[in-house]
């Protein structure tokens, strides 16, 4: 859906910043350019949601971005905090006593990480090769069906 549209720039920046905290690349894995691909994937995904869910999510992301003020970090956007303060802010949401804050962060985390885990460099790193596997299984299934028909 909406192949030519993308997410607002501030949302893309937020996702890129969060990605650095959620899945920082290990020293033995180069993930250059992954921010661009996850924003493309997340644009596809979010823009396919129903309007209620889509706008609700975008509003809550705005709240997250401007939320540092309510957590004692001063009047500053999350994306403009330094790395360590960003991490502290994320942990405040993750360990909040307010269930809805934890659930929201968990949902955003899941979404960003699912998009990141579509990167084929990560597949190779982890040892996941679904395309080859699907291809082999299709052949195996066809052979089995032929032998059953005979």
């Amino acid at each position: 859906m909406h192949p030519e549209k993308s997410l607002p720039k501030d949302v893309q920046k937020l996702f890129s910043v969060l990605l650095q905290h959620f899945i920082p690349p290990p020293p033995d894995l180069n993930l250059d350019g992954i921010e661009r691909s996850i924003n493309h994937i997340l644009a596809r995904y979010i823009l396919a949601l129903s309007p209620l869910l889509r706008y609700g999510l975008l509003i809550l992301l705005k709240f997250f971005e401007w939320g540092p003020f309510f957590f004692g970090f001063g009047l500053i956007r999350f994306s403009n905090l330094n790395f360590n303060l960003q991490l502290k802010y994320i942990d405040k949401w993750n360990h909040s006593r307010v269930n809805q804050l934890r659930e929201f962060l968990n949902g955003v985390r899941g979404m960003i990480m699912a998009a990141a885990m579509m990167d084929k460099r990560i597949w190779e790193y982890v040892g996941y090769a679904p395309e080859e596997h699907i291809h082999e299984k299709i052949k195996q299934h066809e052979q089995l069906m032929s032998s059953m028909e005979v």
Partner: protein
Amino acid sequence: MILTYDKIVKNIDETCDVCVIGSGAGGAPMAKELQEAGLSVILLEEGSYYQTKDFRNSDTIESLIKLYREGGSTFTIGKPNISYAEGRTVGGSTTINGGICWRTPDKILKRWQWENGLADLTPKRMDYFFSRVEEIISAKPVLSESMNKDSETLKKGAIKLGYEVRANIRSHQACVGTNQCLTGCPTGAKQSTLVSYIPLFLKKGGRLIANCRVRKIKKSGHYVTGVKGVIIDPTTGKTKAHVRIRSKVVVASCGAIQTPALLLRSGIHDKKRLTGGNLFMHPNTKVIGVFDDPIYGWKGVNQAYQITEFMGEGIIMAVNFIPLPIMALAFPHYGKNYLSTVKEIYNHCIFGAALIEDTSRGRVHNLPFDQTLATYQLNQQDFHLALRSIALLSEVYFAAGAKRVYLPLRGLQELHTIDDLRKIYEYRFSPVDLELMTVHMMGTCQMGHDASRSVVNQYGEHHELRGLFVADASVFPTSIGVNPSETIMALSTRSAFHIAENVSKYLE
């Protein structure tokens, strides 16, 4: 004949004997049986039409967008919130489920007979319908060619503990264990309604209209007269055409969330406002077990075995491996060592889940702009059952040789030895500390003999509106504790036979 949004260029106004809404486990058998009985049937499906060849890719996110309502981001509100999956595609949730076949347990049928006045739903009388369904969907044991180490490991742990294990029956034709069930079977082996009932329906002249969202069921007095809906272009989300189907029989098979939502949206209430209530859902806990030996869980069939030792308590356990992108949702960690941990464990782990036969209840609500919301509150009994299921699954993993397990509990995410199990009971958890998910929504248009305590009768016919039937998991009066698709298909088949045998009553 199949009509999809790209072929539709003008409004649709058709007449038929029966209009079936939803092409999943309820709608497809209903449509097929009625078409074969000589009635003219139009089958409407909100989702898009895909074929086996369309599932031959590894783009998980794209599959979620295409095949799942809201890309899989649906959840019930409550303590805790619970993620659930609804298929929205031709074939409904059968296109994305694991294809596990279970007849309704005898104890459940007995309960329905006694508590809900469904005297004819005996195992003996249902046998014909179960057998008919099993033949069509090719219900058979899992092949050795598809077996994999994750299921074998679960079985090994269970046997070591002396727990009863069931070798599952699945609906398949030569399934070799591609394990892409969640994103559509790329070999065509899994016998979802997409590849079983719907081709049979089409062969007999049935008409399928995809990308059609039904907005209202039309009625006149105490009779249904048809439906109104829209064709939605899935690439833009915009309405492309309007649909009007005129029929004297309408079957709502949209699932336990969308069916009551549709009825309520159409102003079809029952006297006691039961429609939309009684929602139950088999909440699932998930536990990941990590082993020294390689497992490669993504390379074999899912749920080859289920541990049925605790069915009497309301717990069934199985393994159900998930693609790497979805693992992020099931493995709630992040940060510096995330990828190295995933690299260490992904091909050495089992993703297991325990299904709970719940007694908790929820409700479906309509929201503005054609949206729905489900609320569900986990009661204390089910909460303790969930904790017990986590402990049991962890025990099985350790018995099978796991070196650690990851739990869906906030505050206790890892266990390293079987002695650690007691921590599950030592910590003071509350329901919001649990991570649950489900794929079995049920009960929201419950059937029964007494119209003051049910929405539909034993054949799924609405107590107050002639010609309106419900044929999906909404009709279950109680949780059934096992995978529900075969029960849905059998009840739908039975209802179809009833309609066909009494057709003059409905069509005059």
